Structures are given as structure tokens and as C-alpha cells.
């Protein structure tokens, strides 16, 4: 069976750097940090008191009040970016078959605030259950994909992938696979997350996963720096319209890039710690290269998982050196989480967008906040520290790894006819 080619024809982004793809890219290439003190709740008793929140988000700009009330923030974010991507792809009634348009979304957690509020509400009562009828359909992670399908009438495959911080990349890979197998023509993919809540910050703090650099939030996310002390929690969403190549050509769609392949693997090692030798990371990049039928030397840019944790950054860098050999020193590496923070289940979506825009614009966004070299990293590796670098990017690889030991990589390429 011949596999079909899959291209990206639309993008949408709502990130701590801005509320559109254009604003996101502008922030990325200018090295802007999205971190600031937490506004969503009183964090004064928390070890970490900052995050990368969406700035000035007003649900009523996008939804009527009644609609907004029935949707957790992570679902609102999903709908906002899906709209930008659908418009960007110029998907209009008549130029697609709605039965062959799917939605495969990613969210690591789902409606955490909704869950937290309902449980708190119950705990404050006298034991009489007074759960809101919208509690479950607001909270479940898959409602994001459901709501997108309801809004647009997309009746193809519809579900959400859950693999913690790898969720959106898993969603993109599933979408890619369904399209290349001929099961759908178009899939709205991506991911969204809104975990900046008491439970989210408190839970990650308890794991000692978050940076506690409260005196300087904007320099806290510093992947590959000697003084990195954990990740910065982010929120937001990214959407990608994946489309079968001939379908896209037939309707005259603009094409950002082609998805060449993807890989998946598991560390099979520990619930939260990465494999010390980066075994899962190594395997997943190898799997992706094999699936894409390209040599390691063809990769120009790796958008790394690079969360700014002491262990994770080291094992990922080791894995890159093992997989790419001497070419590891020729390619550009960057962690855009230095700017956006870590959007958990949405990270793969916004980082896929960063990778695609690096291809489109010939610019590699930087790893900001580099102050001090860490001898754990080979100085020959080019982490694109502090400033964006101009470079023709034909092929970009994006890594995401999740708690549980889930690893995913996806490879995008400039469209060659």
C-alpha cells in the first residue's frame, strides 16, 4: 500500500508570547520571555510564584458568556487556535468533505481548574453531592476535540491523546498516520493546556520539577545553562491543519511544510526521571529518522524538549550526540521553552509550529537565558544561545518527552515537489 504525503496547511497559536501565530513568531525570534508573576490565583504561599500565562486573556473576546462558562480554559484555548488555523488554511464549506475531516488533539491533563473547583466545592459542603452537570464534560481531556468538531461539523476521526508533555506530538503523529493511510483528508491537530492552578503549581512543586527563581521569573527557564533549576509552567495552545498533499493542491491551499515522519518510544525506566543515558530519547529520534527515510546529516534544526531541568537536558543532549555523531555539531539546537515555558500537553504543538516557521522563514529561534556554560554539555553543540540565527532550514525535528517515559519526535521538511 502506498502511503500518502501529508502537509501542513494552517497554523494557530495562543501562547505566553502572544495571541496569534504572528505574535508568537515575533516573540520567539526576538528572544522574549513569557514568564511573569502568577495572576490566576494567589501564589504567595507557593514555592514557585510565577508562570508563563497567556497575557490579558479575555474569554468574552472569543465566546459569549454562556458558552465560556461551560468550557474549561484548556478547551477555550483549543477553540481559539483551531479557529486561527482553520481560517489560515482557508478551509471553507465546499472545499472539503466533512466526513473526512478529523480532529486529533492533545492535552496532558485536561480541565484541571474545573476538577479542582468542583472538588473544593464538595469539600466545603456538608457531604451532599452538588456537582455541576457540566463538571465531567468540562473536565475530560477529550472534550477539546469534541468541541472543535461540534463547532465546525468535522465528522471524521475524533479523539485526544494523553501522554503528558508528549501529548500534542502524539496527536500530530496520529493525525499524520491516519492521513497517510488514507483514512482522512484533513485533520485539525495540536494541543492545549491550562494547568496554572493551585493544584498544577502545587503538584509540580511537590515533584521538585519547577524553577523556584521567584526573584527573576523571566530568566528562570534557562535550558542547558549551568544554573537551571527546573521548568517554568506555561499555558496555551497550538493548532496545525494536516492535510493530504493532493487534497491540499487540488484546493489551492498554501503549504507550510511536509511531515516526513515520526517516532515514538518509551524509556521504560522511571515515572518522572529521564533515562540517564537518554535511551528513550535516542531511540525515538532514530525511529523518526527511519520513518522519514532521511539520514541524520539532513537535519538542520532540532527543537528540543529541553525543559531546563538538571537531568532532562543532559540526557537529551547525550542522545543527540549519539544519534547524529559529528553532525550534532553542525545542526542548530534550541529550546523555545526558554521563552514560552513548558506548555505540557500543548508543548509539542507550539514547538512543531516553531519548527515549521524556522523552515519557512530561514531563522532558528534561540535558547534564551544562557549565562553560564555547564561542562555537562559538549561546547561543540550549537544551542542557539540568546539570539536567533539565520540559517536555511530544510529539515527540522521536534522532540517531546513526557512523564511516564513517553517520547515522541516528528520531522518536518520544506516541501519538495
Amino acid at each position, binding site marked *: 500500500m502506498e502511503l500518502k504525503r501529508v502537509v501542513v496547511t494552517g497554523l494557530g497559536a495562543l501562547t505566553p508570547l502572544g495571541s496569534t501565530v504572528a505574535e508568537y513568531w515575533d516573540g520567539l525570534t526576538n528572544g522574549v520571555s513569557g514568564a511573569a508573576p502568577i495572576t490566576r490565583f494567589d501564589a504567595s504561599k507557593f514555592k514557585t510564584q510565577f508562570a508563563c500565562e497567556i497575557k490579558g486573556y479575555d474569554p468574552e473576546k472569543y465566546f*459569549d458568556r*454562556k458558552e465560556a*462558562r461551560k468550557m474549561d480554559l484548556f478547551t477555550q484555548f483549543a477553540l481559539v487556535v483551531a479557529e486561527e488555523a482553520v481560517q489560515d488554511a482557508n478551509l471553507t464549506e465546499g472545499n472539503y468533505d466533512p466526513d473526512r475531516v478529523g480532529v486529533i488533539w492533545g492535552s496532558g491533563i485536561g480541565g484541571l481548574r474545573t476538577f479542582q473547583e468542583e472538588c473544593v466545592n464538595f469539600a466545603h459542603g456538608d457531604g451532599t453531592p*452538588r456537582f*455541576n452537570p457540566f463538571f465531567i*464534560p468540562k473536565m475530560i481531556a477529550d472534550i477539546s476535540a469534541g468541541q472543535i468538531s461540534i463547532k465546525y461539523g468535522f465528522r471524521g476521526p475524533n479523539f485526544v491523546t494523553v501522554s503528558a508533555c508528549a501529548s500534542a506530538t502524539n496527536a500530530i503523529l496520529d493525525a499524520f498516520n491516519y492521513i497517510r493511510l488514507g483514512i482522512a483528508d484533513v485533520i485539525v491537530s495540536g494541543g492545549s493546556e491550562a494547568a496554572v492552578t493551585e493544584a498544577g503549581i502545587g503538584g509540580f512543586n511537590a515533584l521538585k520539577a519547577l524553577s523556584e527563581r521567584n526573584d527573576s521569573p523571566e530568566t528562570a527557564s534557562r535550558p542547558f545553562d549551568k544554573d537551571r533549576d527546573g521548568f517554568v509552567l506555561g499555558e496555551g495552545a497550538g493548532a496545525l491543519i494536516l492535510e493530504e498533499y493532493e487534497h491540499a493542491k487540488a484546493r489551492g491551499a498554501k503549504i507550510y511544510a511536509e511531515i516526513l515522519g515520526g517516532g515514538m518510544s518509551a524509556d521504560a525506566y522511571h515515572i518522572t526521571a529521564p533515562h540517564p543515558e537518554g535511551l528513550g530519547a535516542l531511540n525515538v529520534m532514530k525511529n523518526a529518522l527511519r520513518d522519514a527515510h532521511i539520514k541524520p546529516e539532513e537535519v538542520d534544526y532540532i527543537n528540543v524538549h529541553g525543559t531546563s531541568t538538571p537531568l532532562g537536558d543532559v540526557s537529551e543532549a547525550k542522545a543527540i550526540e549519539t544519534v547524529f555523531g559529528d553532525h550534532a555539531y553542525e545542526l542548530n539546537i534550541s529550546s523555545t521553552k526558554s521563552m514560552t515555558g513548558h506548555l505540557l500537553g500543548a508543548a509539542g504543538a507550539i514547538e512543531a509550529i516553531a519548527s515549521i516557521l524556522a523552515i519557512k522563514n530561514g531563522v532558528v529561534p534561540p535558547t534564551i537565558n544562557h549565562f553560564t556554560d555547564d561542562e555537562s554539555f559538549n561546547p561543540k553543540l550549537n544551542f542557539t544561545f540568546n539570539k536567533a540565527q539565520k540559517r536555511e532550514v530544510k529539515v527540522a525535528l521536534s522532540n517531546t518527552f513526557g512523564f511516564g517515559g513517553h517520547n515522541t519526535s516528528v520531522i518536518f521538511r520544506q516541501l519538495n515537489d
Partner: protein
Amino acid sequence: MSEIAEKVKAIIIDKLGVEESEVTPEASFTNDLGADSLDTVELIMEFEKEFNVSIPDDQAENIATVGQAVSYLEEHAK
């Protein structure tokens, strides 16, 4: 309008996102005010909370209009 009727109206406007002028005694939650079955459940729960009453399911089924809600609550509210 009674104090109960005023409160009922305010809850309906808030939860269903409708205009005050639409909330007439005859208005049906589902047919006129755009509520689905989950909205109706939520409304009943809000009435229970606001008026400190417990509305059994078989009686909740008979509360389909604004007027029916007001009269039930005027009779049962503590």
C-alpha cells in the same frame, strides 16, 4: 414581582445568558430560552442552592417554565 421571582429571574439570566425581557413567566427553559437538558439540571441545582430546598427529580421534571419555577419555589422555599 416577589423577591423569589426576582431571584429566579436573575439566576436564569446568569446561567442561560439571556436578556431580561425574554424571561417571561410563560417562557420555557428549553423551547424559548435555549437551555439543553444539562442547563436545566444546572438551573434546578442553582434554585436548590439559592433557596435552600431540595427538589426531587420527579418534581424537577415538572418545572419547565419560568412561572413553574417561581410557583414551586414560592411554595417550598424556606
